[in-house]
């Protein structure tokens, strides 16, 4: 059962990603990317990362993609322009490199992790049972990874300042 749903959403993710990269209209590309993000969120749920699934929808699909659409509209690129996919030479090179990449990555699909480092199966749901779904993410976040958390906030501040400065017409 889980497997079926998983593969459904997986295939949906791959298809919509493919459509995303091939649309002439940037808005269409953005929307297909949203679909992809949703599919990935579903996959997150199936992988016992429910908190992250929600975050994905809220932050990625809800904020980042909205920002993308804002900018597209701001620049008036909403209409489908002439095809901006590269010509045959570029296509050939890209396909070649893509194929090479896939070829190099496919051993991953068959690996098994060494048992010395893996946790026993079902340990994540057990943890979530113990600490709650949010708690299982929050505890490490504010515990072992506190400093990266603080730095991430500084990073966001820098990003805000940077974005404002860069987008101003006159400094």
């Amino acid at each position, binding site marked *: 059962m*889980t497997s079926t749903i*998983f*593969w459904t959403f*997986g295939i949906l*993710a*791959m298809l919509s*990603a493919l459509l*995303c*990269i091939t649309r002439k209209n*940037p808005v269409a*590309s953005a929307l297909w*990317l949203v679909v992809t*993000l949703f599919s*990935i969120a579903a*996959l*997150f749920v199936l*992988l*016992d990362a429910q*908190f*992250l699934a929600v*975050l*994905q929808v809220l932050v*990625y699909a809800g904020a*980042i993609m909205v920002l*993308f659409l804002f*900018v597209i509209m*701001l*620049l008036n*690129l909403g209409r489908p*322009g002439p095809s*901006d*996919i*590269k010509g045959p030479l*570029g*296509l050939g090179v890209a396909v070649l490199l*893509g194929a090479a*990449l*896939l070829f190099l*990555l*496919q051993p*991953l*699909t*068959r690996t098994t*992790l060494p048992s010395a480092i*893996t*946790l026993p*199966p079902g340990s*994540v749901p057990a*943890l979530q049972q113990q600490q709650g779904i949010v708690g299982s*993410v929050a505890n*490490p976040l504010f515990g*072992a*990874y506190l400093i990266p958390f603080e730095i*991430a906030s500084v*990073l*966001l501040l820098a*990003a805000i300042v940077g*974005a404002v400065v*860069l*987008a101003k017409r006159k400094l």
Partner: protein
Amino acid sequence: MLLNPALAISAVLFTLGVLGVLLRRNAIVIFMCVELMLNAVNLTFVALAQSLGMGGQVFVFFVMAVAAAEAAVGLAIILAVYRHKQSVSLQNMNLLKDG
């Protein structure tokens, strides 16, 4: 049990992202493909978190934060370039070319 399929899907998504970056000329679309790549990586982390611990999920948290920051700044840059060149096509961003 879901690890290997998840990793396969992640690999395909990443490859599609790379293809998109190589194939498109529109800077914003390229940016979107970069986001796609990041998402593929997120999927990998989450899949491995099931076997290796919660550190994977925490890392996804951070990736998302960074992706947001990066999207903001990147799009600001694209705006600034658009103001100069009136275009977001990658072909026109060739000031590094030796005259």
